[in-house]
């Protein structure tokens, strides 16, 4: 009996192929993964988007397989969490590796490419980002490279779906073959070999600098990089705040208030007699107001525009450049510049921001970013609520609240930096190419994020709705209000109905703000309310993620500190404000 038959028996027909998708950070693995599996995973133009692995099923010419999107690594020495995951997956064994190479940085990519050959797993290389390489005047001889590597190399432009069919075809064919493990090379030998290969296969044509290349250079110089960064921030704010306001005023609010709500009111009035149940549905804080008007008319436009702008910046490769520019200042509060990305993401939602710190940072830095974001960064939903509350009445108050949040961040950063032992990781990163974001990729990402928002927002919102409707309509709220009135009225100077804000604010951050809309507050009360809401408890989902990523103790601690500061700062503001107003008036 020949060995071949044995082998065929070892690998039964119906067994799913296991395919590892590997490569350096930020080379397009997740794009390849989404295109091949049809699953949607988040990809961004900076290292460390994928920190855990994702599985997806693929079928190609009747063969089934599992594709695994492995986190990007520069090497396999298990010095970071991502590398540990990658090594563990490799040791488990697989039928095939698809190794994605960045054609614009071939030399650096070949390090991992050669390392992978030491495993007894067949490899097919995907030479990706060829469109960008061409723009930069880099020419690579694919056939020669394939010869040098001793494995097939498929040219691809993943984002445009180019070459992926060919990649799959080759992958499926190769997965049936056996491979002997390659020789282990010492570092020096491998680097020499890499240099040889690059000299043989790559030509750099001198081209005149394109505008993008000039921009790439400008954006990492203090001048004009810092002014450019400020312009980008201002423009982004303009789009989110201005655009959101326009969307809200021109389309969503009229639609909800003049069409949808009256319609619902009518239907409910027809079907349900006046009384508690009707109030629970369409009353002032009824289910339809909290469940439809608030999330869709007031919050959604801002969340949508925030993610539109943020995703665009993310895919353009611009964000790490802000990190480089800001590193000098951020390091004074113990945070490496790169962490400005999760902090900015926190202005969208704290949950992905906290998860995003997993990538490359130390435990200390993770706690720092998590506390900053939970403490003082208003999420997009809460910002939407602030705009609704303060935007029309007092722009100055709005600006004041945001300046206060930045001041609080710096203070908290300084304190936490002192309290928590450990070090922040020094910056050492490859600045990604600037790319014009791909429309389809952007659309897809926006869709995922909006879906998350709708699920995350509507789920807890339902809980909030039920609680609010019940406590408000049954009189329980009145009792609670009376109970905490001395504190709310005396110390915070707010009307006692504010207790509803405090109650709902536990569930979601914007719910701490929105009930204030209906209360006819003075400017002093508006700002006090906004301050309390800003620093108040992080929402339930954030609490959950804090427990999961750190521990219950950390989550409780952060919750306690934020809430105490909320009441302390809000109260102080009210007391001092009253005194000043007393003098002026």
């Amino acid at each position, binding site marked *: 009996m020949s060995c071949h038959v044995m082998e065929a028996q070892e690998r039964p027909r119906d067994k799913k192929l296991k395919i590892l998708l590997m490569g350096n950070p930020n080379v397009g693995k997740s794009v390849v993964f989404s295109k091949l599996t049809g699953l949607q995973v988040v990809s961004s133009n900076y290292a460390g988007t994928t920190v855990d692995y994702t599985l997806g099923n693929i079928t190609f010419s009747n063969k089934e397989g599992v594709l695994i999107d492995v986190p990007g690594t520069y090497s396999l020495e298990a010095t970071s969490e991502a590398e540990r995951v990658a090594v563990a997956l490799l040791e488990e064994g697989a039928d095939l590796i698809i190794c994605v190479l960045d054609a614009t940085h071939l030399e650096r990519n070949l390090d991992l490419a050669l390392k992978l050959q030491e495993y007894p797993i067949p490899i097919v290389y995907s030479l990706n980002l060829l469109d960008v390489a061409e723009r930069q005047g880099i020419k690579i001889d694919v056939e020669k490279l394939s010869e040098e590597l001793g494995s097939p190399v498929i040219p691809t432009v993943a984002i445009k779906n180019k070459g992926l069919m060919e990649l799959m075809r080759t992958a499926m064919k190769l997965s049936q073959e056996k491979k002997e493990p390659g020789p282990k090379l010492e*570092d020096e030998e491998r680097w020499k070999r890499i240099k040889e290969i690059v000299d043989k296969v790559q030509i750099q044509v001198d081209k005149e600098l394109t505008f993008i290349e000039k921009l790439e250079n400008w954006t990492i*110089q*203090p001048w004009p990089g810092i002014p450019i960064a400020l312009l980008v921030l201002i423009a982004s704010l303009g789009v989110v705040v201005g655009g959101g306001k326009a969307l809200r005023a021109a389309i969503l609010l009229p639609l909800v208030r003049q069409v949808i709500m009256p319609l619902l009111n009518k239907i409910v009035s027809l079907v349900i007699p006046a009384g508690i149940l009707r109030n629970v549905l369409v009353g002032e804080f009824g289910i339809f107001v909290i469940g439809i008007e608030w999330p869709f008319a007031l919050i959604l436009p801002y969340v949508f525009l925030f993610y539109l702008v943020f995703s665009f910046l993310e895919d353009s490769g611009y964000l790490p450049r802000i990190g480089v520019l800001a590193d*000098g200042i951020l390091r004074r509060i113990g945070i490496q510049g790169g962490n400005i990305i999760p902090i900015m993401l926190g202005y969208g939602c704290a949950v992905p921001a906290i998860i995003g710190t997993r990538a490359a940072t130390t435990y200390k830095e993770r706690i720092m970013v998590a506390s900053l974001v939970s403490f003082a960064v208003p999420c997009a939903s809460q910002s939407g609520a602030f705009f609704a509350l303060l935007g029309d009445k007092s722009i100055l108050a709005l600006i004041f609240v945001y300046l206060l949040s930045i001041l609080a961040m710096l203070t908290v950063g300084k304190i936490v930096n002192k309290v928590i032992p450990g070090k922040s990781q020094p910056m*050492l990163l*490859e*600045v990604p190419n600037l790319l014009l974001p791909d429309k389809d990729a952007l659309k897809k990402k926006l869709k995922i994020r909006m879906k998350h928002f709708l699920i995350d927002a509507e789920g807890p919102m339902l809980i909030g709705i039920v609680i609010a409707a019940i406590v408000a309509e049954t009189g329980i709220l009145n009792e609670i209000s009376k109970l905490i009135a001395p504190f709310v009225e005396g110390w915070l100077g707010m009307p006692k109905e504010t207790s509803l804000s405090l109650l709902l604010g536990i569930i979601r951050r914007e719910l701490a703000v929105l009930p204030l809309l209906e209360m006819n507050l003075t400017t002093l009360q508006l700002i006090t309310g906004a301050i309390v809401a800003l620093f108040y408890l992080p929402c339930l989902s954030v609490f959950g993620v804090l427990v999961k990523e750190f521990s219950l103790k950390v989550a409780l601690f952060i919750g306690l500190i934020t809430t105490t500061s909320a009441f302390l700062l809000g109260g102080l503001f009210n007391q001092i404000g009253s005194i000043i107003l007393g003098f002026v008036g």
Partner: protein
Amino acid sequence: MPLAEGRKLSIYRIEDLPDSHLLKVLGIRKGTQFIIQSKQPFKGPIVVKVGNRSIAIDYDIAKKIEVEEVA
């Protein structure tokens, strides 16, 4: 001379550097030639250009990298 003291747009070669895994895989090794692309205020990172790759190196690390100017 430490890299941290290098001048923008000058070309240097690395003489000696701390043993760091990430530095190595990013291609910052003994003998590597590069140009300083930018320096940042407040002791921010030094951005060096190795071939066509820009790499941002923390100021404190840059203090420990010995370089020599290449004519």
